[in-house]
């Protein structure tokens, strides 16, 4: 009888510990709330007249009194990531399937040379270009990149094709800044592309803007900062 009780207690306690720790880890590492694209009308495309949606994303060089940092899971992790760049308001992005989507970026960060010039070009937009401060361009100087927004597919054979990569130009070092240290006249970029069938993708920044070796550490690996999910929903 005692034997049975000890056994039951061990199993139940063991499961409770696993579930407890799993829950804490799952909740503290949860994705930021998704930004959902808003419909702004329709747009004619080679595929016919499609609904047109918009998303706004801001890129900050660091947090400040005006712009709090994204969640980092734990206080220690927040300390480790303090002073690092991030996307706002969220890195979880949700857009509808079979639609035209325009993403408007406001880029406040500085930048420099990107290792792979491929990512200084626009890939996957409707006409192969983006709008940069009112001009149509298909690439920028590889030595003047601030960040990129690059959507990758999972290695899934069943996933509909989607590839989008947008370079976000840097602000010059002598740009006039406001009291929080952000440029008063940031870089404004918009890119328009067409989504296919529903699917879940990941995206990240390809410009080494993090810390540690080759500056590919820290926020570069952190959801909510320089990486996120991109969901196309039916």
């Amino acid at each position: 009888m005692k034997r049975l009780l000890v056994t039951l207690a061990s199993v139940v306690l063991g499961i409770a510990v696993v579930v407890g720790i799993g829950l804490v880890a799952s909740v503290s590492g949860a994705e930021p709330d998704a930004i959902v694209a808003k419909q702004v009308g329709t747009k004619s495309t080679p595929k016919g007249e499609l609904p047109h949606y918009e998303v706004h994303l801001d890129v900050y060089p660091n947090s400040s009194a005006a712009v709090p940092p994204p969640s980092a899971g734990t206080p220690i992790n927040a300390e480790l990531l303090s002073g690092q760049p991030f996307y706002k308001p969220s890195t979880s992005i949700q857009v509808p399937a079979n639609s035209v989507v325009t993403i408007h970026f406001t880029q406040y960060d500085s930048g420099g040379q990107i290792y792979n010039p491929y990512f200084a070009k626009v890939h996957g937009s409707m006409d192969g270009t983006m709008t940069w401060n009112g001009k149509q361009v298909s690439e920028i100087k590889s030595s003047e990149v601030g960040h990129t927004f690059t959507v990758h597919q999972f290695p899934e054979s069943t996933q509909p094709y989607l590839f989008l990569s947008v370079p976000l130009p840097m602000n010059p070092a002598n740009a006039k800044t406001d009291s929080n240290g952000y440029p008063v006249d940031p870089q404004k970029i918009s890119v328009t592309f067409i989504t296919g069938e529903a699917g879940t993708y990941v995206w990240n920044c390809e410009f080494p803007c993090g810390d540690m070796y080759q500056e590919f550490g820290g926020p570069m690996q952190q959801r909510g900062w320089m990486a996120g999910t991109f969901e196309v929903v039916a």
Partner: protein
Amino acid sequence: MTTATSTLEASSSTVFGVEVPQPPQHGKPGGIMRHLNFGTGLLTGIVFAVAAGWITSALSSSSATNDTFAPTEPEYIYLAGLIGWVIGFMLGMGAFVGPLRWVTGRDLTHADAEYMAGKDLGIRRYFKFTTDHKVVGIQYLVVVLGILGLGGLLAMLIRTELGATWTEVFSPTFYNTIIGTHGIAMVIGMIVVMSGPVGNFIVPMMIGARDMAFPRLNALSLWLLVAAVVCLISSMFVGGIQDGWSVYYPLAAQAPPGMLGYQLTIIVFAVSTGIASVNLMTTILTMRAKGMTWSRTPILVFGVFAASLMGLYAFPFYQYSQILALTDRIWDTVFFNPVQGGSVWLYENLFWLLGHPEVYVILIPSMAVALEIMPVFLRRPLFSFNFAVAGIVGVVALSGLVWAHHMYMTGWAPAVNYPFMLSTEMISIPVGFLVLVAIGTFWRATVWTRLPLMAIYAVVFNKMIGGVTGVYLSDVPADQYFHGSMFVVAHFHYMLMGAGLFGAMGGIAFYFPKMTGRILDERIGSIGLWTAFAGFQITFGSMFVAGLQGQPRRVLQFDDMFNISNWISTIGAYVIGIGMLIFLAAIIYSWRSGEVASSNPWGSKSLEWQTPTPVPLENFAVLPVVTERPYNYGVPDPYEAELEAEDGDRTSDDRERAGVS
């Protein structure tokens, strides 16, 4: 009233009938050791860690740099804290008391040494820097169960994530962290699971010695392990180990500060294993009982010796790799950082120079314990003692020549691969010897199936699957397909867990009566064992399928085509988890209120079972003399002996006739 001078007079004391001159006794035996224990260790460790971190932060904030390439301030603080922890903890445990007293000319007396061995300390001796090998053995057992428990917990979380194919349970960074931490925790746990508890508790008795050759080093190795494990756990709170247990460059250089926790863990753990290895080897070489020639030495002793020897030559490579990685990270040296001219291949070579011998450090003691258990329950000698020894010697000889089979796909000159393919396929021959000896011993034997032997059935089966799949992986063309897939993961789990851990479970069940004075409950124990075994086949059998389909390892998201094998694998893992918890319950229950064991419940002939239970402080009042080979069991039919035992009224004469004295 005694004067101060008279208490400090040199004296002598009688040790086993011999007058030994003693240094003067200062104060009560034990001195400062009387006030030190695990609690003071924890306290000093934390105080030192906080102090070191605080000083570092005060010093570094003045010279803060804006260079993002360089490590950040928390990096230095964490490193200083870790070093402070290790030093403070060891200090607070009393690890430095002996050396300090020696350099100050106040060497320990015999009475001090007896205090340190835990004489008359009761339960308290388990929480101190105790030198008695039996106490160290028990401490190792508890620590190892903790480490394996941590690894198991993380395994459950990994499988939960992989099984929940429709959602992301954990963030990718946390998922990477649990993969790396599970891997290294399990590896550390499995390296010590046999050499720690059984090597320390049983081996000295098995060779007829009164303690280990270096009792204080013995305690040192244990508490260094504890210090190291705390570094490992702490890493999970500062970004974790995100690059797998092998932490290749340059990923390791980009990782968060948790990587420092990994590096410190390995550096300290390597010291711990080095000390433990030297100690075990010296003990085995010099302290065997009179008459215990090599051919009369039990096979487990060979196994533990071999594991120590391999650990001793292999661990330094790993330790250097992590020391160099640490300097790369903190002081910007360029041993491994590729863009500055370092070599990632150098890292990989250093890593696998330990990485492969380590699997034999894990496997050989488990195989040896299997071969030790079999003759007792089959009541017959080993099929071939000499072949078993030759197998162990062969594995040791080749163990250092196979490491680069992990690097076939790294893109170096392909011709380099073939010598390693050859050596790897060659090493399966001595490993095969061990399996063949096991099978030969089973051949037409009358088996007396008790819990320890059941574990050995599991070992033989799993080892076979692991061995067969390993041959494919060692083959360069086949490995091009398998490399980096779940097939690899399934293969090494068959080896490390299927053979290693199940063997260790058998070893624990076998020696439990000697270590705790009680029989490990066979009902719960065997339910746990077989549940875990069944779950194991489901988990890793299905993982072979996922691997053959092409699922990559260490990857959080995968194609839908792998869903079914992952669901099955996850269900199997939960079954393992429940089985292991049941086995753990058997340990907990039996330790507290199990059936009281006689001093030799299995009727074994080896020396460790000839001591009384509980084993007295010095093991043997009179040192034994060995006159025959270890496994000369004469009784053909163990059932008869068991039936007799059930009669209840068997006399010592009956027992003698049955050969189970």
